[in-house]
């Protein structure tokens, strides 16, 4: 019998329906693999009993013919999602032992669709980081590592590694500046950050509220389409979620892309862009062109300013969002004689270096006298960035760019450690999309000379994930990337 964990969600669903194996068997296969493959440090909490109980229910559903969209599919959940009765920590020391008494809307949707949860996945602390090295539980190791351990990317590094190493059929991720797409690219899997407002943020620990979006990370484009349909939907509990019908994304896969206009932004090809990456980019464009798509050169002139804007707005919002972690109602409490001592001791010990750095920057840019110069200025430039995309989409239907300027680097890379900005620069191709609230998908299209996966990013118009999926599916076929 083949290794069940290597099946895609679509394949597994088909076999489950045909009773080729049971949900319990599938879940057991994943549990075994998960327990035998701890070297990647992908999971921070394994919940095999929970998964098996859910699988048992799924088998009932299959027996009764009441099986749902993701019936019996074992998933991994990023630790940023609050899961009822299951420890959720955002991989921060400050949330030690926190067991939410509520289920996030997105994970509830997945449960309602019949999925089972194998455990909580490692991530950068509070999703702040691009290499999964800021996690309180230690870095995730990229399954593509050979001689030395490489990063899985971040912040959804555990999700990407778990999917790549078949430790779950699919995973949830969140993306604030590239946290789904960049680790997906580093680990050779597919992930989509949907349009802001497509998925509810309720029950997901907030990093930067105006940028955060949940999305699926999976083995291929089809699996992402299946998962996103289950995860998305208007939620009255999230005032920023948008009341729009969720299409059956799977239906568009395989549709003709003839005549589709693919935008290539010149600003995404700075001097010194890695030749292998720019080469793959050109090749990807050609593949789409050979299917009848039209290549259009576009401009996104404010691209160089996206990172500075992001590194003002995200820390500002984070400094406020993370103020609730004060040692009073949940999580870590470090004693202090006075209330302020308790706050300071708890927060100083509970947060890691990168989180503290961003809280400090965010606090500063919001403080009196600097607010206009930094925050308001950033909001204005953010509007210009959004307008860039609006203008570009007058000329094209979808935009193709690389996902990241680099492939996976080694854990503890000196240049990144030395200057945080070097790490921030890795987000250069992904952050604009969050600032503009647009959907974007990353899929693997090839390997670099080191044998590491490289990803391409497809950016769509707001709420037009369908065009992205359609295009990505075509590119996936032609690129014929070989999964780990």
């Amino acid at each position, binding site marked *: 019998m083949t290794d069940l964990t290597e099946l895609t969600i679509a394949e597994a669903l088909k076999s489950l329906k045909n009773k080729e194996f049971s949900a319990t068997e599938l879940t057991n296969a994943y549990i075994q693999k998960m327990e035998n493959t701890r070297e990647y440090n992908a999971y921070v909490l394994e919940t095999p009993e929970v998964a098996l109980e859910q699988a048992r229910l799924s088998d009932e559903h299959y027996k009764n013919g009441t099986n749902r969209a993701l019936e019996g599919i074992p998933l991994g959940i990023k630790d940023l999602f609050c899961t009822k009765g299951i420890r959720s920590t955002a991989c921060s020391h400050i949330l030690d032992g926190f067991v939410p008494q509520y289920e996030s809307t997105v994970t509830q949707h997945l449960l309602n669709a019949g999925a089972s949860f194998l455990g909580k996945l490692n991530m950068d602390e509070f999703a702040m980081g691009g290499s999964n090295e800021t996690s309180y539980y230690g870095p995730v190791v990229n399954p593509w590592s050979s001689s030395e351990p490489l990063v899985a990317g971040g912040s959804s590094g555990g999700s990407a590694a778990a999917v790549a190493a078949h430790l779950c059929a699919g995973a949830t991720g969140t993306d604030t500046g590239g946290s789904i797409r960049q680790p997906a690219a580093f680990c050779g899997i597919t992930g989509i950050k949907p349009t802001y407002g497509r998925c509810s943020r309720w029950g997901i620990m907030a990093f930067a509220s105006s940028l955060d979006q949940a999305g699926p990370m999976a083995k291929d484009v089809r699996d992402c389409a299946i998962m996103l349909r289950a995860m998305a939907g208007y939620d009255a509990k999230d*005032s920023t979620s948008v009341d729009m019908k969720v299409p059956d994304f799977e239906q568009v896969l395989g549709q003709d892309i003839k005549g589709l206009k693919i935008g290539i932004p010149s600003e995404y090809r700075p001097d010194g862009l890695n030749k292998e990456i720019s080469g793959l980019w050109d090749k990807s464009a050609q593949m789409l062109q050979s299917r009848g798509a039209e290549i259009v050169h576009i401009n996104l002139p404010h691209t160089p300013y996206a990172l500075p804007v992001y590194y*003002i707005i995200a820390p500002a919002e984070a400094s406020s969002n993370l103020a609730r972690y004060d040692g009073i109602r949940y999580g870590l409490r470090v004693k202090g004689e006075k209330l302020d001592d308790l706050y300071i001791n708890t927060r*100083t010990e509970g947060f890691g270096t990168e989180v503290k*750095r961003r809280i400090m920057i965010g606090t500063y840019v919001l*403080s009196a006298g600097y607010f206009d110069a930094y925050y*308001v200025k950033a*909001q204005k430039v953010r509007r210009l960035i959004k307008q860039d995309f609006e203008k570009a989409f007058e000329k094209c239907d979808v935009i193709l760019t690389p996902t990241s300027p680099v492939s996976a680097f080694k854990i503890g890379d000196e240049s990144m450690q030395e200057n945080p900005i070097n790490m921030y620069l890795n987000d250069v191709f992904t952050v604009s999309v969050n600032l503009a609230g647009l959907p974007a998908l990353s899929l693997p299209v090839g390997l670099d000379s080191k044998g590491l996966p490289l990803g391409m990013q497809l950016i769509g118009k707001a709420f037009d994930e369908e065009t992205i999926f359609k295009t990505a599916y075509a590119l996936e076929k032609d690129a014929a990337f070989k999964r780990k």
Partner: protein
Amino acid sequence: MAVDNNTVKQVAFLARLKVEDSKVEQTKDEFNKILNWVEQLNEVNTENVEPLVSVNDTTLPLREDDVTDGNLKTEILKNAPMQEFGYFAVPKVVE
């Protein structure tokens, strides 16, 4: 706008974080590096540009005034590091 050691300490207090005296200098340098970097935004002409507050042009949804939540005392207190008599307990706050 360069930040000095004192500002680092003030910002840390505002955020209820402690920067060890031995780390203040280093934190200040790091701070200034990041601030210098984000200040490239000053190159952008933003005259007559409205700050973007909400990325989707959606209106704020309003909820009916119904009691639909609460009565969760056990759940609310479940994760409390210290609770007494159904209250959260903190060090004495002197008014």
